[in-house]
């Protein structure tokens, strides 16, 4: 018989004990729950985060509208979750490496990727991923969790070169059900990698609620077995996300290893524009989460310290709309790409066969387009 008790026996020694803590600064009413971290103590240091969240929300609303008009393909908003991408991006340095999923558009924009470049993917072309933002940042991962291992490998590249840089990788709650994500945690632990994994726990994966995803009490604890630092943050509190990620990145840059942050938020919107959440989700549940959303609480706090006004709000909303409109205009104003791009970025040097297919293919495509044009 193996020497493993089936019942916990109080006389057996406890050999390990763990705890998960939740970080929170601003409650849903915008009241301070604990002193703000030094870097965000002044209202002027929080307004850029607030501005970026409002921009994200403006952009998302525009994209849903464009999708309804059939001008943009399937698009996933971050509505109600804006504190995660902005908390993460604002905690990063330019030299750090972002490894995003499809809900981090706002983080890309924070890091210098153009709105038109972000949207080009959803308009049906990768061209925007050759972007104006950091050349070392990864493109959006559509595969759920497929990018977690890239983050680990990228973190090793930084460690290999002895650089004081770190990686931030963001994925959803469902990604934590996947083996590759566990494998990434595990490698990050064994190799003490400079990486921060951020789980956007919005409690839903399309129609699958968290309860069907895992029996684990928290998602943060999934990092414990990998031996990495873990914590939960109020994912609707941009200060908490920012601070948790900042600490993790600092830890990574200074050789302290990897961190897992579970950002607890809620998906207020449909999964994406192709989804109808009314099929599977009680609207009452959504309503119950509305007040806790991340943008309003920051405004309430800013107002409480006399750092915000209706006039500034109106000014901000106008500015965000203008920025989004300009980005959208640039997107739709771009010259269409020739079909040759299908072939041109597969290899550094095309093989003879690929070159043959390109020539013959482009002629065939041109003929088909011409026939279609003539009706």
């Amino acid at each position, binding site marked *: 018989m193996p020497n493993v008790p089936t019942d916990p026996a109080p006389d057996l020694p406890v050999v390990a004990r763990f705890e998960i803590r939740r970080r929170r600064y601003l409650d849903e009413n915008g009241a301070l729950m604990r002193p703000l971290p030094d870097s965000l103590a002044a209202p002027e240091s929080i307004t850029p985060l607030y501005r970026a969240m409002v921009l994200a929300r403006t952009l998302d609303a525009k994209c849903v509208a464009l999708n309804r008009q059939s001008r943009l393909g399937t698009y996933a908003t971050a509505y109600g979750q804006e504190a995660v991408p902005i908390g993460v991006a604002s905690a990063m340095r330019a030299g750090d*490496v972002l*490894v995003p999923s499809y809900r981090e558009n706002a983080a890309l924009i924070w890091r210098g990727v153009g709105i038109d470049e972000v949207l080009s993917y959803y308009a049906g072309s*990768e*061209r925007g*991923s*050759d*972007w104006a933002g950091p*050349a*070392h940042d*990864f*493109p959006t991962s559509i*595969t759920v969790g*497929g*990018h*977690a*291992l*890239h*983050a*680990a*490998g*990228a*973190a*090793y*590249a*930084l460690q*290999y070169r002895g650089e004081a840089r770190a990686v931030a990788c963001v994925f959803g709650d469902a990604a934590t059900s996947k*083996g*590759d994500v566990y*494998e*990434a945690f*595990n*490698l990050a632990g*064994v*190799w003490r990698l400079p990486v921060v994994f951020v789980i956007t726990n919005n409690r839903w994966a399309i129609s699958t609620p968290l309860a069907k995803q895992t029996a684990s009490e928290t998602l943060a604890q999934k990092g414990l077995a990998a031996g990495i630092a873990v914590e939960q943050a109020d994912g609707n509190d941009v200060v908490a996300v920012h601070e948790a990620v900042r600490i993790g990145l600092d830890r990574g840059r200074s050789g302290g290893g990897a961190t897992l942050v579970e950002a607890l938020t809620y998906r207020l919107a449909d999964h994406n524009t192709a989804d109808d959440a009314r099929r599977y989700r009680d609207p009452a549940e959504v309503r119950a989460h509305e007040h806790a959303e991340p943008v309003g609480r920051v405004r309430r706090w800013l107002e409480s310290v006399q750092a915000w006004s209706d006039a500034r709000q109106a000014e901000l909303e106008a500015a965000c709309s203008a920025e989004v409109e300009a980005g959208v205009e640039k997107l739709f104003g771009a010259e269409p790409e020739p079909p040759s*791009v299908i072939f041109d*970025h*597969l*290899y*550094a040097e095309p*093989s*003879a*066969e*690929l070159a043959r297919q390109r020539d013959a293919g482009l002629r065939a495509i041109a003929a088909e387009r011409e026939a279609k044009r003539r009706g």
Partner: protein
Amino acid sequence: MAEVTLVKAVNLALARAMEEDPDVLVLGQDVGVNGGVFRATEGLLERFGERRVRDTPLAELLICGASVGMAAQGLKPVCEIQFAGFIYPALDQLANHASRLRTRTRGRMTCPLVLRTPAGGGIHAPEHHSESIEAFLAHVPGLKCVTPSTPERAYGLLLSAIRDPDPVVFLEPTRLYRLAKGPVEDDGRGLPLGRAFVEREGADVTLVSWGGAMWESRAAADRLEGEGAGVELIDAASITPFDEDTVLGSVRRTGRLVVVHEAPYTGGFGAEVAARVAERALDRLLAPVERVTGFDTVMPLPKLERDYLPGVERIAAALRRALASD
């Protein structure tokens, strides 16, 4: 020039690549202290240190996925999957990421990784240790897939694979690891990817093979030559990109083609070779194309694996059939 085994040639190429480029590193299961289960990475840890010779946790998806991340940040990881039968989890990373990173970013990010794995049967290994997987890889645009059949080619092709700016899967025939011996000049010279090797010239029939099956193909060519037939033996070496020109050129001269591979028949890469010949050299064919392959079965365990692998008799018979019709 020193005669070395194929596995030693792999080892020499790895050391040479690491010597000349500080961004090259090796990772995989047991590649460090143990030097790899076939000793392909023997001595590398002592020479290059743990930073560049990394034992990984036992997770194939991890090995490939982390390598994608490293490659995207400018390193040149040469990762090892211990046996080809365990590559399947890693196919996700190969097909969804390694092969598409360049396209997905329009060239902003590239993925210059090499994934090495011992492939093929014939060494009395347990189940899953004798698989031939090149057809899976051939169907992934954006990858290259190379398999050597001599020490010299192992050395030169691996160096080129490591220097290549795109992801390359390097299939090392386990059966030939110690069986194939030959001269290797450790001079750092690569052999071109995408180029087949005409191993011997002959006027009557073209015999195309690759990897471990080259061993029996050579013996069959010897046999037929003893019978007075001229066999042009071609080691395809690169599955993708495939050197069609060399094969078509030969078939146009001989009018006859036999393709030999260990992998199963249906959907095997031999079908691709036959199709190219049908499309582009049909008018020159004097006989139906012959394929000598593994069966469409599970790779048998060691007791019957020799019966599964295309043997000299089978290959010789196919060559005779091709030669008989006109």
